[in-house]
């Protein structure tokens, strides 16, 4: 129940295209859903995050769509650029946690072709 599932495992997109990564969770106590971007040799960096009281959040070319009833959320990268090539992780956390242990998905390796 603590798992966060993520798909696809890898994604290849042409420059200018839309990249879509999907995540699903079981624990209805999760109430914070961040997305992280990780480049090789670097730690994950927070991209964008959403709370379940909204269905969509947009920051620049990055949009999170959230479906509470389906327990799913997705990351959309518009106008994908070669510089977006990285591994993306969805995560979930609950404010009821004694410790703020984020549960991460297994990651999606995105390659944007020039």
């Amino acid at each position, binding site marked *: 129940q603590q798992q966060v599932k993520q798909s696809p495992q890898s994604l290849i997109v042409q420059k200018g295209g839309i990249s879509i990564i999907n995540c699903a969770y079981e624990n209805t106590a999760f109430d*914070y859903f961040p997305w992280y971007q990780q480049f090789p040799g*670097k*730690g*994950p960096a927070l991209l964008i995050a959403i709370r379940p009281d909204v269905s969509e959040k947009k920051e620049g070319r990055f949009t999170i769509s959230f479906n509470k009833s389906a327990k799913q959320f997705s990351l959309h990268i518009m106008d994908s650029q070669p510089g977006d090539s990285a591994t993306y992780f969805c995560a979930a956390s609950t404010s009821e946690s004694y*410790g*703020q242990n984020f*549960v*991460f*998905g297994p*990651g999606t390796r995105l390659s944007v072709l020039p």
Partner: protein
Amino acid sequence: DAGVTQSPTHLIKTRGQQVTLRCSPISGHKSVSWYQQVLGQGPQFIFQYYEKEERGRGNFPDRFSARQFPNYSSELNVNALLLGDSALYLCASSLILSIPNEQFFGPGTRLTVL
């Protein structure tokens, strides 16, 4: 401002040895979390410390321990190393212990156990 720093960058140990990893949080951040990231997987929560007290522990054996110092820096110790402990160990800091909790990750320490 300096981000989260970790030392050492890389470390090679043999089975049965002990290792200590160090983390300095962003200035003013009082919460430090440790994660283990095995190659090709998402980070897994190990510990969280806040104001020098353990606030959360993941599903890791007692060989793993940590502490936080008065200046909020932290150490992760792993005893009796196993081959399976080979991973990238990430430290994340955050300002306060609440949700939404924006965690900032360091570059990690790459531990190889031979």
